[in-house]
């Protein structure tokens, strides 16, 4: 019986204006998305490859001298662009795609600062004078456009029938109400999924046909999960539509209510709530950061001067100088990390509060699965951090291998000056791991599922109690 109702619903929809308009709209959006992606993605990959090669060249040049290599560091570390960029753009222009070393100081006595990671802050493009508009990615198409369409498919599914009197007719048959509701839900889900699937297929067809973009096995796996989330997200809005439609006696009122809910939760909550809750905590201000940095620096140098004033033994001085240089670098790196982490905490808190909006949840999910956005950025920073450890361990190992070296890391006199094989130096490669992404996504997925169940059972309760 469920299928009977679903089929009726489906046939009704297939002939409707909204079905035709949805098909056109989704096809247009998805094709735009695909075309833009196959045009822009090669540029991104090219840029990434070119800069990685450049970094490798820098590394090779510096391999001539172990001390210089350790001092100047491995060059810039680049973030790998995701092949699934078309799924979620994720505020990428805001987030830096490169981590470099800090400015290296040097003194007239020949002491020179040591390489350390310098975590970048967000990099707003100050010369971007183009109009500011969101990207047409899947997040936009699904979270914004399609959720609105889902409401348009269900706003009258119960209230409309009641207005026409057909609901009474249907309920006169010996069918339980939940069957009617599920049937209606499935019918709407199938009929909205027809144009959606068509559009997604066209999109993926265009993207996979292009030689410029290669999607590998994991990418397809990720796409599968993204599509599953998309369907769940659509179902959620269908359930919301059914709930309001069952509660309200007029279709027009039902639509107005739904539109207002949509505007509030999809458009305003993600940004307004983030701005409000962002104000609750304040990270270290830029001036404070600078002040602490300068304090650390001058304290360290004061200790250095004091030591040199008291101690005259050359071997101890050399030891101390090495310690001075390496510890200075470590200390500054810790401060930079602390500064970043405070900012990250604020953003994470703001993001967490936006999770009362399903649109924000699925946007986060899309981003983490597509390998873009804020979570991905943090992953990239994590990668650079573990690479820095690897690099430093390599320097110590290589220095140990040289019998002429004094094994005092940090100064020229104490370290090996010999060239090292450039193959042996660890290279930075940015990686994406599906399991890690999925772990961060699991809770949000659960939350989305819960939203759906709550709304659907709400619709059931509302429909059971409705008087015809």
């Amino acid at each position, binding site marked *: 019986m469920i299928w009977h109702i679903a089929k009726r619903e489906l046939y009704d929809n297939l002939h409707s204006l909204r079905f035709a*308009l949805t098909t056109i709209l989704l096809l247009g959006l998805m094709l735009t998305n695909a075309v833009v992606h196959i045009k822009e993605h090669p540029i991104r990959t090219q840029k990434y490859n070119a800069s990685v090669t450049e970094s490798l060249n820098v590394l090779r040049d510096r391999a001539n001298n172990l001390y210089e290599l350790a001092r100047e560091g491995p060059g810039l570390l680049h973030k790998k662009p995701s092949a699934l960029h078309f799924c979620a753009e994720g505020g990428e222009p805001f*987030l830096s795609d490169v981590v470099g070393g800090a400015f290296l100081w040097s003194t007239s006595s020949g002491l020179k600062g040591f390489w350390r990671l310098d975590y970048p802050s967000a990099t*707003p493009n100050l010369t971007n004078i183009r109009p500011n*508009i969101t990207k*047409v990615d899947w997040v936009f198409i699904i979270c914004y*456009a399609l959720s609105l369409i889902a409401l348009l498919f269900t706003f009258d599914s119960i209230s409309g029938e009641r207005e026409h009197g057909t609901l009474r007719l249907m309920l006169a048959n010996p069918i339980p109400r939940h069957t009617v509701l599920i049937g209606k839900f499935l019918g709407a889900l199938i009929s909205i999924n027809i144009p959606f699937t068509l559009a997604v297929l066209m999109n993926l067809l265009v993207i996979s046909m292009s030689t410029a973009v290669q999607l590998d096995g994991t990418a397809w796996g990720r796409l599968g999960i993204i599509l599953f989330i998309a369907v769940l997200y659509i179902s959620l809005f269908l359930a919301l539509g059914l709930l309001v439609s069952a509660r309200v006696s007029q279709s027009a*009122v039902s639509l107005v209510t739904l539109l207002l809910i949509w505007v509030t939760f999809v458009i305003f909550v993600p940004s307004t709530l983030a*701005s409000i809750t*962002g104000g609750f905590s304040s990270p270290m201000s830029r001036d404070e950061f600078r002040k602490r940095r300068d304090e650390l620096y001058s304290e360290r140098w004061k200790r250095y001067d004091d030591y040199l004033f008291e101690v005259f033994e050359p071997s101890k001085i050399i030891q101390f100088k090495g310690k001075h240089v390496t510890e200075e670098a470590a200390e500054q790196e810790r401060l930079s990390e602390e500064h970043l982490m405070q900012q990250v905490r*604020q953003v994470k808190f703001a993001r967490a509060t936006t999770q009362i909006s399903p649109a924000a949840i699925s946007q986060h999910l899309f981003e983490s699965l597509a390998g873009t956005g804020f979570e991905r950025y943090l992953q990239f920073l994590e990668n650079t951090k573990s690479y820095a450890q690897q690099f430093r361990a390599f320097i110590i190992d290589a220095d140990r291998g040289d019998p002429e070296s004094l094994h005092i890391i940090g100064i020229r006199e104490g370290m090996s000056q010999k060239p090292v094989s450039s193959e042996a130096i660890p290279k930075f490669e940015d990686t994406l791991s599906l399991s890690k992404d999925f772990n961060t996504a699991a809770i949000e997925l659960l939350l989305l599922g819960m939203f759906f169940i709550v709304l659907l059972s709400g619709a059931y309760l509302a429909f059971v109690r409705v008087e015809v």
Partner: protein
Amino acid sequence: MMMTLIRREILDNLMTFRFAAAVFIMLLLVVANTAVLIQDYERRLAGHNTAVKMHQRQLHEKKTYSAGMEKLLVDRPPNPLSILNAGFDKRLGNEVLASHGYVPSLWDANMHGSDNPFMDMFASMNIVFILEVVLSLLALIFAYDAFAGEYENGTLRLVLTHPIGRGYILFAKYIGAMLCLIVPLLISLLLAVILLMMSTSISLSTDDFLRIGGIIFASIAYLSVFYLIGLLISAATRRTSTALMLSMFVWGFLVLVYPNVILAMITRPDAWQAHTASTFNKIEQIWEEFDRERKHLLATDDFPGEDWGFELRGWGSRYAYLWGNPRSLLYTYESVMEFHGFGEKDEHKMPHAQNHFRFLGSEVISTADRTWLIRKPALENIYIQPANVKRTWLKLSPVGLYDATTQALAGTDLRGIRDFFDTARQYRQQVVDYLYDKEAFGSRQWFSSDKEAADWSGLSQFSFQRVNAITNAKRALPDVSLLLTINIALFILIFLIFVKSEV
């Protein structure tokens, strides 16, 4: 009869659920967002004030003129009307160097103020955006059944039996609904303005009130466009369900889809990279010529063979280099000397060094001015024009038109921001005049503070005033008139359809 029709229309609309919902949601969104935005503005203003003080202090701490050139930063205050429409106010740089070394422009600016730039990832709301999204939706919800509903109920036939022209009926409907729609708009904007006035850090001038008035007018025109679109659909389809569906999709297309898709489709012409490179080359050559002259002077003067620092031995720091940025077409010669004492032996070199810096100073200024003549049109060509093309395409949707109008009125559009850089350029001219007045380039204080420190007291402080409301209105005029034209065109179209339709 006309009044009766209008009254009927108003009463019909006022008593509905959609009207109550409209008022409620508008108030909620506008008030919540205004509170957030005022907080944000206060933060930015505090950041601006700290920055101004800091730059002032840093400048006065510099004891030589050449070192002061590094610290002549001027700051752009946040615009209080950015609460209504943020435009470029938060996005573009708000501090720029006004030294003699180069002519400052938008592309040389930096940003100060935000403690956590990551927070900017969350799209910034502003009042106009709320109106853009919610008002248009409300207008369509009010309009979709205006004709179709009456047609279905048969009341339209009833109304038309009266000896009254169809034009009047149309007009009465339009006026009645618009009067209802304006209520939530005005109340929410009024509350926003009251909140603005309650904040201690924001002082609105008469000009600001005129600008707000202009924004309200533009909002009404925008509202009317969407109401008329809804009416057109309603008159043309004659069925409420069809009209509703069509209205919603038209809304989705105009507000959500079109602006994003059109910007994704338009890409910059490929020639810009070559153009940038060739212009940068030209500018580089001019500076290299300057460098040759400089070296020539050093080689042929009384003490041939010394370096740019005259091998002065003293206490302090010095550096000089040519540097450039190919992306922003900036190139300049930076030379800073900050000594506070010299050895005995160097004293006889002083007049010679002073002569050299006098020559260098005027030469740097004239070279900077000359390269600006090349740089300015190139920047215009490479960056401004493509952005303007995109902006023009956006105006095909009423949303883009409304956004552009309100930005121009609030003074947060590109022209408003560029006004600041014009002022910064004028200020640089003042600085140059001041330096000439003081004969700073040829003075000992240019590079050393051992005898006397540089004197900054006579240099007037930088201040930036926004253009007056009339200029803002003039800038918004083309877009406003376009909005009004669309209104009239739509009205005529609806009239034609309605007159010819059979009941």
